[in-house]
């Protein structure tokens, strides 16, 4: 499931942060900026003091800072626009549109690399186009941004600009905005092409040959569709001529029969259950163990991935989700749509009589205050399948008395959903995001382009880094530097875990020794007590700057929203706003840094 961590409302994220955070994003931004500013100021002063003496050095530093801040505050939008336009023209001269040609070429031949007969081809195709676009656009942004300024300086064409009344800040910002515009335009075309590609490839229908249908028990007909997109469906049609197929490759179709049985025509609709953007309302999950005692987590069944925990069947063990704001106003249709995904762990497969059946489970809705429960609904678990339950407003309680969902089972808008496994010696596994309420769906098209906007956000960050690096490094070095930031940004989480000692195998030196000595991750180092202490101390020293760098780096994996779109979940506006804010923060910060670097160079003085 894609939503493995809680998504905070935008303002809470910006100002206060989550329960584990000391501050919100904005205070963090200012702390980082002030710290970086102080460090830069001290560093600048020291260098200046060495070169010009302490008094002269202090004076120069003061003038740079004050002049710089003045310059930054009086940017001319007209000149920034003119420079951005120049940047766009330069990009076109550098054949930026080749990226589009490469992308279209990839789409044309994508069918050679992608097999449609996957269990969920929608997911595969969407993640393919989004991932391919991400890599191409980020590489394009990288190459454009890092070589532009150094080339201008090298070819001295920069003098035609700096001899005009232009401030260094405007040069840096103009570049950033110009490249961002080019990237946006390229991304827009790619987005459109990708959308058409996905819809054309995944959208399909099936034919049904009348002679393949047989009479079903109780009237109606049943049979199979013809093959399309490497699969076919079982189909059931009722007496009135309406029917649907079973679910294959993550979708199903509606079927309509026209004409009498002899000359019947069957119209199979487009695939349902794909091209979705669910808007889930998540609850808080807690567990009750086999003896009825509260537990924060269920049982581990030994999976390497500890995301889900399990409850034992045939006991009091239960997984309980508590949902807030379950009010009639939010669920206007008068029913509560619950979607549930269950994992099953069997301690035995069952005998031949029961091996073909899913494990029986139950769902009960419960008022958290009064303890009033709805009548138990049983279901058979099917893994990797979203079980949709539409709970009607009018229900019966556990004694068979009529009750109202919103009036009787909620308390201050809170509702509990209890899930239990009914079969002895078998287990159900779940995580918080496995059960959610789905009051509505968002448009897939909108969500698809939201996915592209997450690439846009990453592209902005890469452009900002590229331009910033190019203000003080030569083209190739700036490229290497930006590539390093990009790669480290992709592995930011891993770097942080190394820096905080959360991975097995120790820090950089310890893991190097383990690799060379072919020692496994879990055993104690066999280098002797003293040497081990020295190694670990050295690692602790190295990992602090590593932590600082990793904390500052952009989290490219976090910014990517490929899985949200491919798994059919709406990218919430709050999340999108958070990502855009992050990229703007990098843009502002790197613009300031880039300005000061360029200002120190001879050409811009």
């Amino acid at each position: 499931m894609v939503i493995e961590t809680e998504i905070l409302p935008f303002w809470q994220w910006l100002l206060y942060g989550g329960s584990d955070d000391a501050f919100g994003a904005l205070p963090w931004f200012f702390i980082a900026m002030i710290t970086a500013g102080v460090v830069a100021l001290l560093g600048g002063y020291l260098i200046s003091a060495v070169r010009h003496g302490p008094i002269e050095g202090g004076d120069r530093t003061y003038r740079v800072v004050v002049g710089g801040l003045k310059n930054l505050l009086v940017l001319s939008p007209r000149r920034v626009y003119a420079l951005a336009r120049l940047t766009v023209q330069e990009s076109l001269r550098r054949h930026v549109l080749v990226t589009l040609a490469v992308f279209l070429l990839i789409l044309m031949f994508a069918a050679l690399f992608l097999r449609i007969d996957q269990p969920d081809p929608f997911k595969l195709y969407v993640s393919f186009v989004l991932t391919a676009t991400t890599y191409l656009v980020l590489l394009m942004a990288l190459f454009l941004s890092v070589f532009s300024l150094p080339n201008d300086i090298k070819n001295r064409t920069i003098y035609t600009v700096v001899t005009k009344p232009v401030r260094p800040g405007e040069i840096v910002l103009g570049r950033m905005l110009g490249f961002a515009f080019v990237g946006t335009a390229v991304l827009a075309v790619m987005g459109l092409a990708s959308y058409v590609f996905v819809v054309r490839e995944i959208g399909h229908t099936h034919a049904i040959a009348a002679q393949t249908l047989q009479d079903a028990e109780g009237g109606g007909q049943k049979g199979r569709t013809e093959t399309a997109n490497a699969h076919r469906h079982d189909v059931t049609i009722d007496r009135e001529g309406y029917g649907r197929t079973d679910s294959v490759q993550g979708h199903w179709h509606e079927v309509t029969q026209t004409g009498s049985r002899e000359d019947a025509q069957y119209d199979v609709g487009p695939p349902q259950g794909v091209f979705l953007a669910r808007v889930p309302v998540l609850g808080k999950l807690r567990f009750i163990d086999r003896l009825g005692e509260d537990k924060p987590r269920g049982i581990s069944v030994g999976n390497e991935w500890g995301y889900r925990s399990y409850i034992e069947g045939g006991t009091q063990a239960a997984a309980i989700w508590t949902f807030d704001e379950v009010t009639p106003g939010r669920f206007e249709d008068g029913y509560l749509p619950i979607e549930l995904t269950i994992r099953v762990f069997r301690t035995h497969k069952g005998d031949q009589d029961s091996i073909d059946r899913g494990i029986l489970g139950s769902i009960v809705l419960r008022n958290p205050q009064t303890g009033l429960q709805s009548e138990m609904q049983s279901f058979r678990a099917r893994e990797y399948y979203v079980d949709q339950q539409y709970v009607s407003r009018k229900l019966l309680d556990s004694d068979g008395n009529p009750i109202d969902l919103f009036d009787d089972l909620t308390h201050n808008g809170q509702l509990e959903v209890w899930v239990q496994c009914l079969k002895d010696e078998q287990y159900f596994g779940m995580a918080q995001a496995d059960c959610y309420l789905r009051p509505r769906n968002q448009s897939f098209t909108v969500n698809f382009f939201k996915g592209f906007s997450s690439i846009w956000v990453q592209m902005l960050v890469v452009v900002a880094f590229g331009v910033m690096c190019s203000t003080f490094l030569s083209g190739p070095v700036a490229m290497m530097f930006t590539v390093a930031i990009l790669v480290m940004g992709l592995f930011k989480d891993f770097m942080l875990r190394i820096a905080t000692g959360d991975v097995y195998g120790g820090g950089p030196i310890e893991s190097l020794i383990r690799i060379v000595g072919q020692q496994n991750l879990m055993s104690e180092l066999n280098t002797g007590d003293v040497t081990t202490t020295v190694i670990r101390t050295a690692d602790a020293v190295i990992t602090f700057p590593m932590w600082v760098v990793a904390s500052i780096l952009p989290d490219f994996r976090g910014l990517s929203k490929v899985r949200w779109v491919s798994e059919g979940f709406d990218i919430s506006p709050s999340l999108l706003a958070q990502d855009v804010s992050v990229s703007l923060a990098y843009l502002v910060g790197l613009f300031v840094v880039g300005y000061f670097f360029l200002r120190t160079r001879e050409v811009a003085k």
Partner: protein
Amino acid sequence: MSERRSFVRKVVYLCAIGLLLVPVSWLSAPATRSSVSGQGSSGGKLARLRADYKLSQANLGEIDPASETIKLATLGMRGIAANLLWEKANHYKMTEDWTNFSATLEQITKLQPNFVSVWQYQAWNLSYNVSYEFDDYRDRYYWVMRGIDFLEDGTRYNENDPQLLWDMGWFLGYKIGRADEHVLYRRLFKDDEEYHPADRPREMRDNWLLGKQWFRKAQYAVDNFQKEVEGRTDLIFHSYPALWQMYYAATIESEGVFGEVARRAWATAAEDWQQFGERIIPMYDNTIVQLGRLDYYRQEVERNHQQLNALAPGLADAIQSERRQRLTDAQRRVLAIPIDERSTDQRAIVNQLAAMLQVTPHQLAGRIQQLHPEKAVEAHRLADALQHANVVASNIERSRPDVNYDYWKMRAEFEQTDDALLARELIHKGSEAFAAADPDLARELYEQGLQKWRAILDAYPGIVSHGITGDELMRIIEQYVRILNQNDAPIPADFPLRQFVEYHDDENRIRGLLPPVSESPDTSTDGSSEEASETDSRDGSGGEDSPPTAVRGTPPSP
């Protein structure tokens, strides 16, 4: 002057280029083939080496444009790319993202299509590990077939690779036919229109029969392309086609197919097993084994032995006497100690002396060469032949248990008999009647079936000394006892398999329920057992009335 020098330099360059073209052409000219005549040159040295060592893609298997493109796109770093993808696949597997896992495997194999282990390992991963992650048997079947499809793709990229071909046979047979869900899997497999070509008849849509075909392809690759079998002995490797035919025959009977169809299936199994017995199979020490020809090689040993001795009658005994005379007193004293009273050291000395006293065929031939030079050639020829026959005969004796040769030979034989076919059918129908809540009919059918089993055991007493049939029969008897319990009836006094139970029921599940011996009119059984013991010679093992130690056999290895 300078123009002239420049001109000369250009001419020199041209000549150098022209000269270099000769070795370059000799080294790397591509092989050509005329589309009209089919004739062409074998190309330069590199092209010939590629052809000789079967290194070009055309020799290895199918050429896939997608695969070639991906290989080129990695700019020579496909090893690194494959490593990263492998890591990614592991991550997807851990996080249960099966679509991306499967797609990543495709990418790895496109990068390294001729890395056979990848196909083997990941096909196993799909069919065994990923399928296990799903609770619904239809999902599990889908992933089992996904692994099989994956492996089949591998056989296209790696033509005539016996490992992949053999694995295909194994996956089809064992994963579908021996899983806990085998009844459901076999049903789904027969109905699997995506897997079977449209023109494959329904009776051929059988996992065992198709598995057997893949084993045959693997054998063909080994026989015709000098490919090595890795990871399993040749003996085991070649036994599987016949074994899969046996499993096919047994499975269709368990599904209620009897009569001529079942008889034909067992007859084919018997032929396949015989064919396997006739196959000359190389052993690890460069000798051979031919499982079905034990009698022939024993006769060869005897015949050559006699002929060699006939060249110099009494010479072997004379040599042995000479050697005895050369023994020291201490050695003689050790030899004189009765076997039971010898210590460990003494037994070791005796073994050493026995080896020393034994006259080998070549020692005998050597002595004949000294005494009768005109007979030397013949003596050495006979000694060689004797030695060879001896080695093969002992290889056969040693190897037969490895594949349970005698059991399967006998099984394929007895299953074709009317008694066996009828016994199976009656028991099957009895089980159906019991499932349909008709214990009376079930009892009647079971009792008729058990009578037939009695007849089978009389005719083939050695069959129960092997675990498979003995255990199977025990399960049948246990089910019979359950049926009797439903009828509130004890085991009748004339229960025909009394002695089988007494010898075979190690866990005492049924033995305690048998009526006392005095009440049992088992004289007829004894009589038949006596007859049975007379037929013991057909398999060399104890019959039903043999002592318990002889009845209990070790489970078969395959």
